[in-house]
């Protein structure tokens, strides 16, 4: 699926961060010959068919591909939400297949942040409580300065005592971003984070994520099918039929669309 609506007036995210972080020995996450098959026999579907990919530290990577290309499966496998059929997935130098459920839970809580397309927040908790949820679950003290910075930067400081039902979709996603960032995870997985937002709210959210990469060396992997969103990333990885079929550094909306046309055509 392609986005036909491309806003050419959007600013073009620079390659300002591409020169950073070459010193890190390991990528934030990487996959080696990752395969995932659903079902068996004739009904078997190869969602991932030998994916090799690295997500660099301190960079903003977008994963794109048409529906059924395996981009969500890739993210789920790499985040320890799903187990691959074969191959290896690493977060840092931690191979996640080696972890049991408790280990995976710790990994998700301490090293990974998530932003989903919807249902990001616990409805019974206030915005503030939702943000600190991973810390509370771990029994770790909140870094108040960081918390204040995040809610300030996201413009939700006056919403902290509100429940999700009292907030707009954009506000909810910003709370989700704050929660993803609160532990300064090694990696944030964002799965279509702007899928349910209007273009203004989308732009704000994506700009914030990019700023987090630039200013705080946050590593982010974002699954999207919106070329305009992908343009905020430092690099785009294209998936089709469960394989990596190309990538693009310092993308613009145009170059992404161009590449997609090439791949899809």
């Amino acid at each position, binding site marked *: 699926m392609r986005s036909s609506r491309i806003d050419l007036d959007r600013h073009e995210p620079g390659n300002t961060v591409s020169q950073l972080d070459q010193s890190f020995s390991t990528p934030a996450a990487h996959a080696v010959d990752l395969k995932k098959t659903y079902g068996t026999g004739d009904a078997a579907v190869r969602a991932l068919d030998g994916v090799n990919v690295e997500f660099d530290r301190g960079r903003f990577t977008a994963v794109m591909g048409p529906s059924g290309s395996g981009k969500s499966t890739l993210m*789920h496998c790499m*985040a320890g*939400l*799903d187990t691959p059929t074969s191959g290896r997935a690493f977060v840092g130098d931690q191979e996640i297949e080696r972890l049991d*459920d*408790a280990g995976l*839970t*710790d990994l*998700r*809580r*301490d090293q990974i942040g*998530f932003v*989903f397309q*919807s*249902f*990001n*927040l*616990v*409805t*019974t*908790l206030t915005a503030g*409580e939702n943000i600190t*949820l*991973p810390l*509370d*679950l*771990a*029994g770790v003290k909140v870094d108040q300065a960081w918390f204040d910075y995040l809610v300030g930067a996201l413009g939700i400081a006056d919403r902290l005592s509100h429940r999700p039902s009292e907030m707009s979709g954009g506000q909810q996603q910003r709370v989700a971003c704050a*929660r993803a960032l609160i532990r300064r995870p090694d990696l944030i997985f964002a799965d279509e984070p702007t899928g349910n937002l209007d273009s203004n709210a989308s732009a704000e959210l994506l700009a914030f994520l990019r700023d987090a990469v630039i200013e705080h060396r946050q590593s982010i992997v974002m699954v999207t099918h919106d070329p305009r969103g992908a343009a905020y990333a430092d690099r785009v990885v294209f998936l089709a039929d469960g394989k990596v079929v190309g990538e693009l550094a310092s993308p613009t909306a145009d170059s992404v669309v161009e590449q997609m046309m090439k791949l899809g055509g």
Partner: protein
Amino acid sequence: MWKVTVKGLLARKLRLALTGLAIVLGVTFVTGTLVLTDTLNRTFDSLVGSAYQHINFQIRGDSPFSSTTAALSRSGDRKPVPESTAAAVRRVPGVAYADGSVEGYAQFVADGNAVGNSGSALGFSYDPNRQLSSVRLVEGRAPTTADDVVMDKATATKDHFRVGDHVRVLLGSSSPKTFTISGIVTFGSDDNLAGATLAGFDLATAEHLFNSHGYYDTIDVLAKPGADNVELQRSIAKVLPPGVQVVSGQTVANELSSAVSDALSFLSTALLVFALISLFVGAFTIFNTFSITVGQRTRELALLRIVGASRRQVFRSVLVEAAVLGLTASAIGLGLGVLAALGLKALLGAFGVTLPPASLVFEARTAVVAIAVGVGVTVISAIGPARRAVRIAPVAALVDRREDEGEVSMRRRIRTGNIVGLAGIAALVAGLTSSAIALVGTGAVAMFIGAGTLTPVVARPMSGVLGRPLAKLLGTPGRLGRENSMRSPRRTAQTAAALMVGLALVSAFAVLGASLSKSAKSEVDNAIRAAYIVTGPNSGFSKTVAPAVSRIPGVGVVSTAYKGPFELRGEQYSLVGVTTAGLPQTVNLAITAGYGAPALAAGRLLVDTTTASAMHLSVGSVVPVTFAQTGTSMIRVGGIFKANPLIGSYVVGAGYFLAHFNNPLPIVVLVSTRPGAGNVGRAINSYLNVYPNVGVKTRAQFEQSQQSSINQELGLVYVLLALAIVVALIGIVNTLMLSVFERTHELGLLRAVGMKRRQVREMIRSEAVIIALFGAVIGVIIGTALGVAFAVSLKQQGITEIAIPVASLAGFVVLAALLGLVAASWPARRAAKLDVLAAIAVE
């Protein structure tokens, strides 16, 4: 629409299974009760039938009482028949046989212990005439000498007695005697008489042992073949002395049957009440489940409306679902009920109510009642939710909005709850003051429904308060559990309401029991001055005890008390007779008007204050009284004493009592000691060694035994109420399961952002504990009030003190919280095992 309903049923198997379980248990209980009582009825009927199948007529004394409630008791309320009558009847043409018989209390002793219980230890004159008796000699020979006894086969088998062995027998009018077993008998084809032991003596010995010289209790008559029974009965009646009647064997059998079924109907009513309580609690669970699922199915139901389902069809589809569920559950309950009958019997046995063995009787009526009740309760409980389903607008299919209770409906809820609840309380109070049981029951049901309606109003704040310590203790999981319990106050409240009902009843009985217990203690303190109390079987014990005890050194006054039925102004009551010499040293009568012991010695009647005011009696009133043996006479009221259930309402002196009862047995002997006496208790005790059925207690021990028998009854009530609690817990499991399904997304999210499985379990458990605590706290509060109301209303019946067993009540709350944990275990496991990916992938 039918297809949609069926599909819906199948799609929600698990929830239906859980909901159905609540009905299954209630119906099981109902069925078990009916099967058990039918079985017992049948058993006794066939026993009675076989006991009287041989005889054509029975000759017996007239009953002078207008109300013959005592048909089951042994001959106590009828005059004996003179021996000479038998000879006269034998001379009537057409009579084949006419044999007199006597019966009384005779209990075997095996290894120093009394066999069986005293109420079912039947001593009788063994009639060797096989035509007249159902008692069959299966081994040895009939008793012929004063040393012989025949023993029922059951006792012989159980306690290893053989023909020729010696056996001690406890008797009423004399000290225990040793007999030689001459033979072993059965009753018809049974090894004993419906659980009662049998000790048969030859007629002369029996008359002697049961103090019935020159008199028979009854004479059994067999007609010659071909005799005209109607004519014969008339002929026999002509030769009978005054005060003696002849009735057909069938009449006696019918009288006994109906007396048995009367006695059993009390048992069956009591058990059915508890069965209905479980069903009532189950109704809350069904109501709650259907409410939740109608809420969850809002979209689906609205969609049905859009595609053209009428309101009536939607309404009907919910009710049909309930009916199918109720029918299935009832059918299962019906099957399990047969097993439950056996369980109930064992349960009653464990609490000392022994019932004869028999094969189970399953009447068609049982099936009809069980299914009608099961389906009825389910459908009625589903009406409310079905009406809510009908109100769903078709547009609800298009917008995603959770049904939320608005301000207006909250206010309506408060009003409805208050009206229903207050009406219930009013009915309850009215019922209690006029002792109308049905009104009490209806009132309690209305009160609980009212309380159930009101609980959602307080659910949020109360859950918040109750959950705070958990949130503190468990951190985030506890806090989330607390929030979850607060997020849908109606759901929390309705789930808790079932437990509330159960715990309210448990608490009410706890308060009642504690009050009874405390009253019993104060009754003993107030009424008894004696240092030692000698008690035995309820039917009385040997008359030789009191004289022997009085000869023990150090013993002061020995007072003997008797008890028996009499009629006053045409109503039957229980009369206590007590020896008057030195009475103030053993008994404190607390005389409020007239005299105590002197009035008794003078042959006057004492009544208690309650009776005096109810019957408008005062000192000097003269009232007619009727005794079985002596007929009607007048007696003057000589004094009024402060009511004390331990004493009874009517007291006369032993002299008067013995003159009006034939050979009564003491039921209690009170012993005071001389100053400076040694250990009199030990001396009495060692004397009483020969009477395994009689024991001596100090006042403190006596108090304790009174209290422990109350506690035992309370224990039985708790066990019967436990089922209601189990049903309430099923409701909690059910609600939590539904919530877990409903919150799949949220659980997935929590897991994704790092909630451990343990923490998920803690969260669900916290919610369960809060719900349980909520129900328990409200239940205990209501129950305490209810218990106090019961206790106050029973003041006349002897509850003089109100006690609130705070420790027990607190224990119930803690127990409820623990049970909440248990209820949470399955939903918690389920939630923890939830596949994170599947949970967040659901769109």
